[in-house]
């Protein structure tokens, strides 16, 4: 966003444009180099909405057909509303430069059955610019916390017609949050299990604010209300809640419980006849995990959730395991 309101070149009086986030500017009339004092603000970009209502509804219907969602969703799903909004995001680039050294331990068995632990020394350079795009307001129930792809045509043309959510989180919090996340990601990328030396420098390179168009679709299925959000630039579904399929669900539950029970029982039977308690223990644990997952799947009813929802930690593994259980049945 360029601001030119009321700002004039102190040398020639010409109207000047100040790009937010930049301190140094050049007067286009007299060539003077100028300095914007104080808080230069943050560069702000808005992306043009490229979707219309029909396209958004088509994308939602296609999304309904994917995964373990109720198969009669297209028949029974009733559209309640569909509208675009602008959501604010902080977009940061954080440079990480350093070294993480240490070792990895590998245990192997020799011919006589003795186990040996080998230490493999590791030195990993971490040198990367990490880009994050985090939502700058309370996303409510939209299930959007970050954007994967930022791009499109920058334009404020739709700003008048599309409701805009104001940014409520601070620039400093965003910079600090990005620094923490960059360090975590750098450590993960380095992949050194046992660290003996770490020297990492983290430098915030840039921050900007992005207004991104998102379509909100609300619909009902039976008695319950569900929603989906669609990327206003790419037309892809970003997040959503949908009813699960009762058949898939019950198959997962019966398949899961019976499989869990079988493995747990097999663990006990095999384990009883063996000198090595680990088989029994392992079998029982695996069985219990499957039982537990099945229970969670069942308990949370038939809802399929995609996106960054607060309770996603609870539900996401269920979805994954549900699909795996489906595979096991075949």
């Amino acid at each position: 966003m360029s601001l030119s309101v009321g700002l004039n070149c102190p040398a020639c009086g010409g109207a000047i444009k100040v790009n937010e986030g930049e301190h140094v500017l050049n007067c286009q009339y007299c060539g003077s180099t100028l300095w914007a004092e104080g808080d230069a603000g943050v560069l702000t970009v808005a992306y043009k909405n490229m979707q219309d209502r029909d396209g958004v509804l088509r994308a939602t219907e296609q999304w309904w057909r994917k995964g373990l969602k109720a198969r009669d969703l297209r028949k029974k799903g009733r559209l309640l509303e569909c509208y675009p909004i602008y959501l604010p995001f902080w977009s940061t680039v954080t440079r990480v430069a350093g070294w993480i050294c240490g070792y990895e331990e590998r245990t192997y068995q020799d011919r006589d059955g003795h186990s040996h632990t080998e230490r493999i020394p590791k030195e990993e350079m971490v040198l990367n610019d990490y880009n994050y795009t985090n939502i700058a307001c309370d996303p409510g129930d939209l299930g959007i916390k970050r954007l994967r792809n930022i791009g499109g045509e920058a334009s404020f043309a739709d700003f008048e017609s599309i409701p805009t959510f104001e940014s409520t989180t601070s620039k400093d919090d965003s910079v600090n949050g990005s620094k923490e996340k960059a360090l975590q990601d750098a450590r993960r990328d380095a992949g050194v299990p046992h660290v003996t030396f770490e020297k990492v420098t983290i430098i915030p390179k840039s921050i900007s604010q992005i207004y991104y168009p998102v379509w909100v679709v609300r619909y009902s299925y039976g008695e319950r209300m569900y929603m989906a959000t669609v990327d206003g630039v790419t037309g892809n579904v970003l997040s959503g809640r949908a009813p699960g399929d009762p058949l898939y669900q019950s198959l997962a539950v019966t398949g899961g419980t019976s499989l869990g029970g079988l493995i747990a029982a097999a663990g006990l039977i095999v384990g009883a006849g063996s000198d090595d308690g680990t088989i029994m223990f392992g079998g029982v644990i695996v069985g219990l995990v499957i039982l537990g997952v099945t229970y969670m799947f069942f308990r949370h009813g038939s809802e399929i959730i995609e996106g960054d929802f607060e309770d996603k930690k609870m539900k996401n593994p269920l979805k994954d395991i549900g699909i795996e259980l489906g595979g096991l049945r075949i």
Partner: protein
Amino acid sequence: MKVVQIKCPRCQQPINSKVKDLAFYCSHCRTMHVRDGGVNVIDFDIAEFNPGAQQDRVYMPFWRLFTNFNINQSKSAGGAIYKLGKFLGGGSNSGNVFIYIPAWETNVSEFKHWAIGLTEAQPMYSLRNDFNNIERTPTVVTREEATQMADFVIVTMEAEKPGTLQYLDYSLNVQDTRLVYMPYVRGQNGFAPGL
């Protein structure tokens, strides 16, 4: 927000630059200044081009950090020689080294290439007192950011020697910073040294 005209803090002449460069050079009195929390005149060097380099000449800015460092302990798995020892000489564990940090906009691999390359080379150059109308690449890295990157350069040089670095206990003090304009020649395969 207030907008002011940038003037040389020594002779008050306005600075005219067509690019966004954080290092403001006054061609009248040859003063360089930055605005990092105040108006600060900085030390800078302009290295002389090799007389053979006549075409496509460009100056690249580096923050040259004069550092004192001390290795208390360095442990590696395999390999034995301290690479850093080369600067210290005679089995000493402490000494001075110039660390060069590229001051223009670089991506991470360019950053590493230029920083390590020049720091390992510890170039010798003769000075001139103006830019001779040769284009200079704008500075975007602040003095503070450059100072923060010094550790990376030191540890990289130690880690990239033979063997796998396991532990390094060292101290590093930046005693002096200076913007150094190094001569390069633009070619088909990037930049070639113009010293």
